[in-house]
């Protein structure tokens, strides 16, 4: 599939670096602000993941929870999430956007309606945290039909046998979870060990693009440079929270952080 996500990986590879993926929460801390944040960090990020917040997120650590609760409190809805993406895409058509969240939100919106609206808004990929293989097969198929990548996760607890099946049913990008943790945990394994596990997964089908996420910060990102892509989420959410608490501008602080992350990859 030739699409914006693949293109971003290709571009990064041509510059001899991993793609940089960011994750922020739609509506954090307001709809308008989160759009501004998205726009400004996209200057340095290759792919932007945008979370549609849910209030019982069983896979997220404290930082993303804080951002999610704040966004929900400030009134973000699914419709609002799509509006943010549409506006973002109007200003930056070539930047791939991946929507990420929990299945209940999609289920209530209606799978078909969700995919259609994603398509109309310019969404390039979807990650559903609590819809693992093989239960996700019907939904993944529907996404593929509309040329939206369905991105699956692989964890250190995933057996090689299972990983093969997941990868076989994957579109062009696979998300490797660095360690046993919710998002934003302290990296409790060495980057060397993570890369060793990563290579095992990558070997299954080297043509696909594999990104590493969970627990990646300014401190740890350089050690993982040999991956196809790296996701930073909680660290950015934390920066946004700190900025708000200190009365600083979260847009500037977040985008400065992403700029700095990018320099560590070159």
């Amino acid at each position: 599939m030739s699409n914006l996500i693949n293109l971003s990986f290709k571009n990064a590879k041509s510059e001899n670096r991993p793609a940089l993926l960011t994750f922020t929460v739609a509506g954090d801390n307001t709809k308008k602000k989160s759009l501004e944040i998205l726009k400004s960090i996209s200057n340095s990020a290759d792919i932007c993941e945008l979370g549609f917040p849910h209030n019982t997120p069983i896979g997220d650590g404290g930082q993303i929870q804080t951002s999610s609760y704040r966004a929900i409190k400030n009134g973000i809805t699914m419709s609002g999430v799509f509006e943010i993406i549409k506006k973002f895409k109007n200003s930056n058509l070539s930047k791939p956007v991946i929507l990420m969240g929990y299945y209940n939100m999609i289920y209530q919106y209606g799978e078909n309606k969700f995919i259609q609206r994603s398509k109309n808004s310019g969404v390039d990929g979807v990650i559903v945290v609590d819809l693992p293989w093989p239960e996700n097969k019907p939904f993944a198929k529907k996404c593929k039909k509309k040329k939206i990548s369905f991105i699956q996760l692989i964890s250190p607890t995933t057996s090689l046998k299972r990983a093969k099946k997941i990868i076989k049913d994957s579109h062009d990008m696979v998300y490797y979870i660095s360690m046993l943790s919710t998002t934003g945990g302290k990296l409790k394994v060495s980057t060397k060990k993570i890369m060793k596990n990563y290579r095992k997964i990558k070997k299954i089908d080297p043509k696909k693009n594999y990104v590493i996420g969970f627990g990646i910060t300014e401190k740890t990102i350089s050690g993982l440079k040999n991956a196809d892509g790296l996701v930073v989420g909680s660290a950015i959410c934390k920066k946004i929270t700190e900025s708000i608490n200190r009365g600083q501008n979260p847009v500037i602080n977040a985008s400065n952080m992403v700029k700095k992350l990018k320099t560590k990859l070159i």
Partner: protein
Amino acid sequence: MKIKKKLSLIDQHDKNGFWGGKFGGSFVPETLKKPIEDLTLVFEKLRKNKNFIKKRDHYFKNYIGSPTSFVKLDNLTDHLNGAQIWTKIVSEANGGAHKIYNATVHALICKSMGKKYIIGDTGAGYAGKMLSMAAKKFGLKCKIFMGAKDIKRQKPNCDAMRKNGAEIIPVYTGSQTLIDAVSECMRYWVSNCDTTHMCVGSTVGPNIFVKICGWSTSQISRELKQQLCEQFGEIPKKMKLYNCVGGGSSSFGFWNEFIKYDKKQIELIGVEAGGPYRSNKHAAPLTNNCKIGILHGAMQYVVQNKDGQIEETESISAGLDYSGVSPLHCYLKDSKRARYVSASDEEALNAYKLVTKFENINPSLEPCHAFAIACKEAKKLSRDTIIIVNSCGDAIKDRDIIKDRLGKRYV
């Protein structure tokens, strides 16, 4: 949707873990797939293992104190002048509630898996207290996740947990009640599933946890069936089983053996928490025909808004204050085998007053919800109907609330 008579309800799910094709399942992050698969294999093996069953029965008898008594409430029956009212005093079980069955089984499973750490969630504090007891008994390190609001209102159970050596982790997110405690406990498991076993405190969560809990609390109806035969020489012709429903573990256990009977002979009535009078934040997803959604890894009726955000509930009973409900109960509702109604905080308090005025029992506010409806309906029924209420918890933990709401003379 039809319930099979020969197979236990916990086993009537399809290969993806759904009861009735739509309730339950395992909606979990990829990291938990493997530990859940492992636990499923272990549990299916253990439940067929004679030695394990022997061990379970040994602890149920000698540690929990099975069977709990089954008694007639003569004074209450005379006062209401309708159906006969009986109760099974499950709160006699070690620790003061039915939660000990699930906790003991989980501790035994944890041991047999060679794990040294066990974690659990708690609302009223019973599940936590019992897990801390079982952990102590079997030499396991224990962490209990509990909403900060619940820690405040269920102090006696918190004291017990700490005394048993468990660490209480206060949860400050969301509504700071059971729902957030379950989420936080699951998150902790995601990060520590290699060394730690998780016990879900009710018949909720991913499929396997629903099964283990239902399998454990079913001891209640096994005992009751035998006690009924001893008392009446047979299973009575007209019987009604009332039980409060939060997550649904005590009611499922109280009913399991009787689900296969015709509902004209044995009616099953689940009483949900209606919350304060005139409040709209009920913890009663079945009574109020809530939409189906996914909560804590399972498809179920759940209190939520249009977008799919889980909504807060409000109940005087921490043990019933939960936005979702067991997939088993969703299935029992849709197949019309059980009937679900709700009782308000005030009705539960009045039932507490009434029951303790006439009888020498001390049911906690959770079963008082069931007593409220049972007493109301008993009046309209004839004396040959046998009403049985599961008195599944003891009111010691509710001391402060009862004192505050009903006055000193009630404690």
